[in-house]
C-alpha cells in the first residue's frame, strides 16, 4: 500500500481515510509520537538522576548497573 495513504481496518473491512479525517488522523499520530518521546525522555531523566545519586554515594558503574 502506498506510503502517503492512510488505511484503517474495521471488522476486516479496509477503508482509506481522506480529506479532513485523514489530516486529523495524521496530526493526532504526530501528537502521540511526541508524547511517547517525552515519556521516554522523562524516564531517561529519572534514570540519570538515580545514577547521579548513586555515584555520589560512591557506587561503581557496575554496582549502579546492577541496581538499575
Amino acid at each position, binding site marked *: *500500500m502506498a506510503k502517503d495513504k*492512510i*488505511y*484503517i*481496518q*474495521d*471488522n*476486516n473491512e*479496509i477503508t482509506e*481515510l481522506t480529506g479532513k479525517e485523514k489530516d486529523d*488522523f*495524521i496530526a493526532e*499520530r*504526530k501528537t*502521540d*509520537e511526541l*508524547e*511517547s518521546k517525552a*515519556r*521516554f525522555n*522523562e*524516564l531517561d531523566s*529519572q*534514570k540519570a538522576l538515580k545514577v547521579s545519586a548513586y555515584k555520589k554515594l560512591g557506587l561503581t558503574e557496575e554496582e549502579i*548497573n*546492577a541496581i*538499575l
Partner: protein
Amino acid sequence: MPTTTKMGIVYPSSTDLVKDGATAMGTISTTVDAKSGLVLLETQTFSAVSAVNFTSKFSSNFDNYIAEINCTFSASLDIYARLRSGSTDASGSDYVTQGVGSNSTSVSAGRTTTTYWFCNFIATGTEFSQTWKLFNPFKASVTNVISNSYSSTGATVAQNACVQRHNLTTSYDGITFYPGGAGTMTGVISLYGINK
C-alpha cells in the same frame, strides 16, 4: 445418553433413534455454547494499516475479553488502544496506564493518564506480541485491563507488564489498536470473549 469426559457434553449413542438426532444436536450446541472457555469473536489479519478496529464486539454475552496481538510496525513505536462506542473512539484523557518494563538490565516503571492505553515503559519496538485482558468494557462501569507485552527491534528484546483503567463509567462495545505515531502495522489480532 453418554457424555464427554472433560466438558460433560451430552451426545447421542450409536443405538439412539434417528428421530432423536435433532434434539441431541440442540443439546450439544447449547452445552458447547455454555461450556467453552474462550469464544473467538473475530480475528483480523491486516497489512500496512494505520489502525485495527473491533467495532460492536463487546456485549452482555461476556463480561471479560482477551485480545491477542501479533504484529510488526513500519517504524519503532508503541501499540496504543482506545475503547469505542459504535464507530467512535473514546478519546478523552481517561486512560490510566501503570506498568514496568525491562530491556536487558534496565528496568523502568511509570504511570500515565492520557488519551489512550499503551503497555510500554522501556523502549519502542517494531515487533510485538501482546495479550490484553479487558474487564467489564461493556458494563456501565470503569474498564480495567491487565496486559503483557513482548517487543523487539530485532536487536533488542523488551518486556512490559501493565495494568490499565478507563476512568469513565460508560459502556463500550469495541476497541481499536493502532501504532502510536507515523507508521503502519501488519499482523494478526484475535479478540475472544471469556465465557461466564
